[in-house]
């Protein structure tokens, strides 16, 4: 996994993530017991729940990074890139959440999609952040992109509890907070916990690498600007010579 954006820290993190993934496969698919009611279906939980946790975490990080960019004491394009990178990762986990959620729903409720509070607000958030990424590549200078995206992200983050609250009061049919009720056996809880830890490590690893890729992209844009500046000067000087009698610089 060596590459230009890796450092010792990311390599250690990468190794830990791989280890965690194997661990999750082992426990999630084999070592943890079947559920009394859902039998093997419950194993989807070990990827679904961590994905939900990751998607919300990623979008909250995007919101915090956007506030950090807007606040002039901490304004720097690194925050903007973190916000962008985190939203991209968040959207992947959100998609995974929706797919695994509907598969699991098919098994436990017999229906792929139910107008349930959490499903609906997750789907709405997915669309909101697709809109956020659309705003991110509207063009303009990096500063314009950063300011515009930061605002849309902050409105989106304020939106999350609002959507959730309003849809929750509409009606709700979600798993009855299985983790909280403690009806899960210890082994299941342990597998679920290792899933969450692994996914969090994975998120940090992806975030660091993505931020650095964006940093190189921005540096390249600036590099192209300098090259174009030199070109323009040459073009001007060339044109200046014959046209006027005054000596060029």
């Amino acid at each position: 996994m060596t590459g230009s954006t890796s450092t010792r820290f990311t390599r250690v993190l990468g190794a830990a993530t791989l280890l965690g993934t194997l661990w999750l496969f082992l426990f999630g698919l084999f070592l943890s017991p079947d559920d009394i009611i859902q039998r093997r279906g419950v194993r989807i939980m070990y990827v679904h729940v961590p994905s939900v946790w990751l998607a919300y975490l990623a979008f909250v990080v995007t919101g915090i990074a956007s506030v950090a960019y807007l606040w002039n004491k901490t304004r720097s394009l690194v925050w903007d890139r973190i916000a962008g990178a985190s939203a991209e990762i968040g959207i992947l986990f959100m998609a995974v959440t929706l797919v695994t959620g509907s598969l699991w729903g098919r098994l436990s409720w017999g229906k792929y999609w139910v107008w349930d509070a959490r499903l609906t607000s997750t789907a709405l958030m997915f669309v909101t952040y697709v809109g956020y990424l659309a705003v991110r590549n509207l063009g303009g200078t990096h500063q314009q992109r950063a300011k515009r995206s930061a605002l849309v992200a902050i409105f989106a983050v304020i939106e999350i509890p609002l959507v959730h609250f309003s849809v929750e009061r509409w009606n709700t049919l979600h798993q009855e907070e299985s983790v909280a009720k403690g009806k899960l056996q210890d082994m299941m809880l342990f597998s679920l916990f290792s899933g969450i830890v692994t996914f969090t490590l994975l998120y940090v690893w992806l975030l660091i690498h993505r931020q650095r890729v964006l940093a190189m992209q921005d540096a390249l844009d600036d590099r192209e600007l300098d090259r174009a500046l030199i070109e323009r000067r040459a073009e001007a000087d060339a044109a200046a010579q014959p046209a006027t009698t005054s000596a060029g610089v």
Partner: protein
Amino acid sequence: MDSSAAPVVELSDAVAVLGSFPVLAGVDLRVEAGELILLRGPNGAGKTSLLRLCAGLLPISRGRGSVCGLDLTTQRRAIRSRVGLLGHANGLYQDLTVHENLRFWGATVGASAQEIGAAEQRMGLAARLATVPVERLSAGQKRRTALACMLVRRAQLWLLDEPHAGLDAAARDDLDTVLIDATRSGATVIVASHELERWAGLAARQVEVVGGHLNPVRSTLETTPPGRG
């Protein structure tokens, strides 16, 4: 034209970027109050962008600049209220009449009815024309309406991009007298135009815009201008 007052426009090594393209790559310019400047040069050289930079619309990415004594990097919005920019489009509301357009612009600066009436008079948009929706006006009449809006907004610096485009001969002469009249009453005018022969007699100073830079043009009328540094 006393040059003791602060220059209306002062740019030193100003760079402005469109996307990632440096449309202005180090511009030096100094314009005194009441001057009428002609920007000449090929298309894509940066004439329009220079006008938008002076209007505070296009952010300055490197170098320094000030318009009407206000800093171009930090006080861009304050600059805008003192500047009128007339691009290829007139910035008018097609559905509204001439008078309604002027009343709207007057309302944003709190101009009085007399000021609006005076502007209509100055631009020859009296009674009959004033109640006609803008979309039914000729190009020349629309251009004069846009200039009237600038008058109503009490703009100190007039930035005109190809003002003669789409005008017939009569409307062009009409426009020239308006511009001269404006400079005499203290406004400063910068015009970007291709029609060099038209401007020879009028413009006090001509500046060549090429490759995002300015080269002063030796013109018969004036003494050696402050050339590029």
